[in-house]
């Protein structure tokens, strides 16, 4: 009798599996479905400020799909410019972060094992302090009378202060500064595992250092480059704090536009439609990142 009951009760194994699964299903996947639903609604002055999509009254089930939000996004050049601006700035920032981060990760991987731990700590430490405050630090540096301009004027490189604050340059500096550790970490993890014997083989066969780097090291670190770049690019596309604090009126980024639609205009349906389109744009980079992550899991498993 007990055996029969036990057979139908979930096993311990499925309990272990279902707790994280249900939590993530409920608080991660289901909310996206709701964003999709609300993106087909229209804004009204009420609490919550949108028209219900599914309605059941007088024995009739009404489903109203309002495509207006998407048509609105496509017709208004502001939104298209904001998407384009986000992708452009995120791409430039990712490239700059890669160009700075790769040599850094390379030098770290080459260092003595005891030094490596210290260097790793030094790279990670800034990302454990407040993100907001690290962006704030640049406000004092980049301003018209900021430290950078004072310094450049003092050493005599420039005669008139440069306009850096509230420009796209400031946004790129901010993104690179904030996300550099996330670029370095996967690159370092990849480069440190690199098989030294391959480099020695290349050198023994007469390959020059530069040549070995291009033909052996760089292709082997492709996985780290992809992971690091995606860890910078994807969050940078949706970034809100950096364009808000360092950017100016000319900085159009989609995270900021979404925030303003939501908090200032209280137009939840348009904000939802903006989020859905952003997700569609990011689906390729996210898949790329995910594929790399699962490959890593299998490799070590």
């Amino acid at each position, binding site marked *: 009798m007990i055996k029969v009951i036990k057979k139908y009760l979930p096993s*311990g*194994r499925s309990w*272990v*599996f279902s707790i*994280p699964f249900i*939590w*993530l299903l409920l*608080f*991660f996947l289901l909310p996206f479905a709701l*964003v999709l639903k*609300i993106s087909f609604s229209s804004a009204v002055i009420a609490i*919550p400020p949108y028209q219900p999509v599914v309605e059941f009254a007088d024995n009739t089930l009404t489903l109203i799909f309002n495509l207006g939000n998407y048509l609105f996004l496509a017709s208004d050049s502001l939104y298209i410019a904001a998407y384009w601006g986000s992708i452009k700035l995120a791409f430039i920032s990712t490239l700059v972060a890669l160009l*700075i981060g790769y*040599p*850094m990760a390379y*030098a*770290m991987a080459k260092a003595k094992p005891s030094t490596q731990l210290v*260097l790793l700590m*030094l*790279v990670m*430490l*800034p990302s*454990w*302090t*407040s993100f*907001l*405050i690290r962006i*704030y*630090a*640049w*406000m*004092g*540096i980049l*301003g018209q*009378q900021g430290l950078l301009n*004072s310094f450049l004027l003092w050493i005599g490189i420039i005669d008139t202060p440069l306009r850096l604050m509230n420009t796209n340059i400031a946004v790129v500096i901010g993104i690179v*500064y904030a996300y*550099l550790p996330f670029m370095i970490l996967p690159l370092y993890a990849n480069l440190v595992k690199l098989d030294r014997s391959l480099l020695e083989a290349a050198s023994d066969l007469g390959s020059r250092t530069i040549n070995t780097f291009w033909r052996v090291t760089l292709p082997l670190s492709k996985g780290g480059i992809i992971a690091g770049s*995606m860890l910078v690019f*994807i969050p940078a596309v*949706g970034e809100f*704090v950096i364009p808000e*604090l360092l950017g100016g009126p000319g900085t159009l980024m989609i*995270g900021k536009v*979404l*925030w303003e639609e*939501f*908090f200032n205009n209280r137009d*939840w349906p348009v*904000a*939802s439609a903006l*989020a859905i389109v*952003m997700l569609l744009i*990011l689906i390729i980079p*996210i898949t790329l*990142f*995910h594929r790399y*992550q699962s490959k890593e*899991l299998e490799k070590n*498993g």
Partner: protein
Amino acid sequence: MVKLPKPGFSTIMLFLGLMFLYVPMLILVIYSFNASRLVTVWAGFSTHWYGELLRDQQLMNAIWTSLKIAFYSASMAVCIGTLAAFVMTRFHRFRGRTTLSSMITAPLVMPEVITGLSLLLLFVHMAQIIGWPQDRGVATIWIAHTTFCSAYVAVVVSSRLREVDLSIEEAAMDLGATPFKTFFLITLPMIAPALAAGWLLAFTLSLDDLVIASFVSGPGATTLPMVVFSSVRLGVSPKVNALATLIILAVSLAAFIAWYLLRRAEERRKQTLP
């Protein structure tokens, strides 16, 4: 043939890169001791702004709220993240594996505005259907933070779980321990450092989050980043510099202790090995 050590291109870049990371924070710390309200003008040494900071009641309340949320979120995220990591590394071939692995890695890169908006809509729907949460605040921020922090915990813990020698767990099971007992007596002590690291990471991530908290919070709960953001938006203020200095000090101290403990553990492990 002896090669003379000369700093290569990558070493110079590493040095410059670290300068790039640390100089802005150093400037923040220096200017927190500035007597002038203007950040660009040095008017002598003063600890005036630290006093101002401690007298700011709103800020102190926000710090307390943030610490409370970060503590609860980190603790819950360690539970969920560890379970997810355990499932991903120990169970192979089961239904829903791909879904779980996507759901656990996606929050790592998901733009915060999307996560924030989606969770807010969930809470609004929940309030309509089951009547909870009537007003958003600490509880809703806790759920939101737990969800994205568990992804980070899962990454940290799963990399440790993959390193652990499986034969010890197998030996315990062969000797008659239940899987449950094996996990608590064998696996858990072995992965404890990773759990601690994951907890600390989740704690700092939760303490730091502005965007998601702004979406899912109500009038009842204001976290520290929300207060800092509203003051920073109006321009540079030396009080924020003082706060930044205290945060940098606390994080450096914690990092130093972690580094010291890690090194000691490593040395001890080397000694016990034959």
